[in-house]
């Protein structure tokens, strides 16, 4: 039985993107439309039932000779993991759209096109069971990110967008080449079919083409997720996007990372060194991200590097490849989406009120914006893994997972990196909020838009609720992971 709600999760934001772009001149109707669609995006996954959708209605066929099941059409699978992540992505998209329509009198259809197209692509990445379809949406998402950075009005944004595009011109074709090799070996782009071909030993996992495809797709995944060597450019694009857009960009990155990694695991976990490489690259991302965050003076860049460091925690969990570790990694991914979104919005408020991003020129803002200060502080504590917030729960799970897998070094590394994250926040909070205000600092806009405070408040509530009751998400994620490990 097909579930018709599943494609709607991708089609509705995509259709909205096309409409707002085509009717760019009518600002007011566009604003109403985008708010309605933004409200619908998190609601659809909540009301949709779990299931599978075959595009074109082509159901799987059984080969009567071999008894193997084939999927002739693009297949989307909707399960508890997709429900949780699409819901959170929908919430962040709604908050970003809400801030945007309140901030600007005239809505830009093109900019809103990028936001909705990105949400649609990230949703498709989570749902798809087709590796070529995954590549198409991965490519759209990369271009959307370039567009969002280019559309910001910040200094140096075009240069950063161009650099990301040039690096994408390496990462994307290499991934496509890997997918091509996989198609050549297995004769299918459907992931379930590829996995069953490997399980039935129809193809050799030691075949050079199969191994090469693994390496090439792995490299493309590094680009999509902003792990080293792409950590500098990833933090760069966060810092050159509008703060509310950066909140959404990091959600796209996290979703690209986990969805492509889960697909790679299903196909390539039989390859020697695959898990080791995931863990090593994740550990390097943690080290480089936090080390570079400690040396920054621009707070947007600082958050950008912290976000990259947190990606390492996700990879570490998933890379250990046990049910508990993968659950911890995915839980960390969910928490990172919420926490980093809150921090980008919070620091966006600082930019809005002072027009300054250099921590050396800031100070004394707690007396002007105590609510923002408190919310940023709680967000920072959550990221550093301070109890009882959600970051603590997932990081504790990750530490327990690496200990139980026999890697105390990784547990120690996770603890040290969390402490360093705490140091970054103490340093940043002190320089921006607590120390005396420099004489030359001007508070140009003292009243912050209520939409910004509202958005931060919603995200903070999510941080606290998930921190207090982690089971509302971990139980479902654990069930899903148990299913894919079978």
């Amino acid at each position, binding site marked *: 039985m097909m579930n018709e709600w599943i494609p709607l999760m991708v089609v509705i934001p995509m259709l909205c993107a096309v409409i707002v772009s085509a009717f760019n001149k009518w600002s007011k109707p566009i604003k109403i439309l985008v708010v309605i669609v933004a409200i619908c995006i998190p609601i659809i996954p909540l009301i949709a039932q779990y299931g599978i959708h075959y595009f074109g209605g082509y159901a799987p066929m059984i080969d009567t000779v071999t008894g193997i099941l084939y999927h002739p059409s693009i297949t989307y699978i909707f399960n508890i993991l997709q429900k949780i992540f699409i819901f959170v992505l929908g919430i962040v998209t709604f908050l970003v759209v809400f801030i945007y329509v309140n901030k600007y009198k005239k809505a830009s259809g093109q900019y809103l096109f990028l936001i909705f197209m990105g949400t649609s692509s990230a949703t498709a990445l989570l749902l798809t069971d087709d590796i070529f379809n995954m590549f198409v949406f991965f490519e759209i998402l990369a271009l959307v990110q370039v567009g969002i950075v280019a559309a910001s009005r910040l200094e140096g944004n075009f240069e950063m967008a161009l*650099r990301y595009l040039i690096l994408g011109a390496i990462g994307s074709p290499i991934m496509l080449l890997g997918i091509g090799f996989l198609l050549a070996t297995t004769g299918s782009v459907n992931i379930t079919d590829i996995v069953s071909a490997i399980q039935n030993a129809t193809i050799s996992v030691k075949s050079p083409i199969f191994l090469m495809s693994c390496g090439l797709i792995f*490299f493309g995944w590094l680009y999509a997720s902003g792990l080293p060597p792409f950590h500098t450019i990833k933090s760069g694009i966060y810092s050159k996007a509008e703060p509310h857009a950066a909140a959404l960009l990091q959600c796209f990155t996290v979703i690209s990372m986990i969805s492509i990694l889960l697909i790679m695991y299903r196909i390539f976990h039989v390859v020697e060194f695959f898990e080791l490489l995931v863990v090593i690259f994740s550990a390097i991302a943690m080290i480089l991200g936090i*080390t*570079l965050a400690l040396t920054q003076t621009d707070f947007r860049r600082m958050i950008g590097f912290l976000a990259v460091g947190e990606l390492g925690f996700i990879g570490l969990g998933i890379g250990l490849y046990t049910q508990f570790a993968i659950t911890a990694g995915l839980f960390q991914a969910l928490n990172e989406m919420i926490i980093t979104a809150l921090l980008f919005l919070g620091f966006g408020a600082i930019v809005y009120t002072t027009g300054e991003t250099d921590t*050396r020129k800031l100070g004394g803002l707690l007396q002007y914006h105590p609510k923002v200060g408190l919310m940023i502080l709680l967000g920072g504590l959550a990221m550093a893994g301070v109890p009882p917030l959600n970051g603590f729960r997932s990081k504790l799970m990750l530490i327990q997972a690496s200990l139980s897998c026999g890697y105390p*070094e990784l547990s120690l590394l996770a603890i*040290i990196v969390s402490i360093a994250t705490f140091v970054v926040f103490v*340093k940043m909070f002190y320089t921006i909020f607590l120390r005396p205000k420099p004489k030359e600092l001007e508070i140009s806009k003292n009243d912050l838009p209520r939409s910004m405070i509202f958005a931060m408040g919603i995200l903070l509530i999510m941080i606290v609720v998930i921190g207090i009751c982690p089971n509302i998400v971990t139980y479902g994620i654990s069930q899903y992971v148990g299913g894919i490990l079978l």
Partner: protein
Amino acid sequence: MKLYDKFFNVAKRFKQIFTSGSVTNSEVSGILTAELLLIVSIILLVVLIRHVNILLCGVMTLLVAIILIANMPLIPKFKVEQEDSLNKMLFYSIITLSIIIIFIYWGGNFV
């Protein structure tokens, strides 16, 4: 005293290269934390070699620790390598691709 001095030269050297104006306490604390984090975390990563061979792990850990401490301050050098230059990003991308292929392609065939 030499090692102690080395730690405090980190901030001085960093300031010479990257920042203008006076250096603040929070900057110094950030840079020193980064330096220590880098050394400790690289050594921790090297300790992972114990899963391959304990003797090799011991030798490598000592060697890496000596190299890292002898080359202090690391952060200024590290920061130069991690800047927003497209050339460096491309260089490291190619190096990474080569490492991945070596590990997966040859590793998958011969291990």
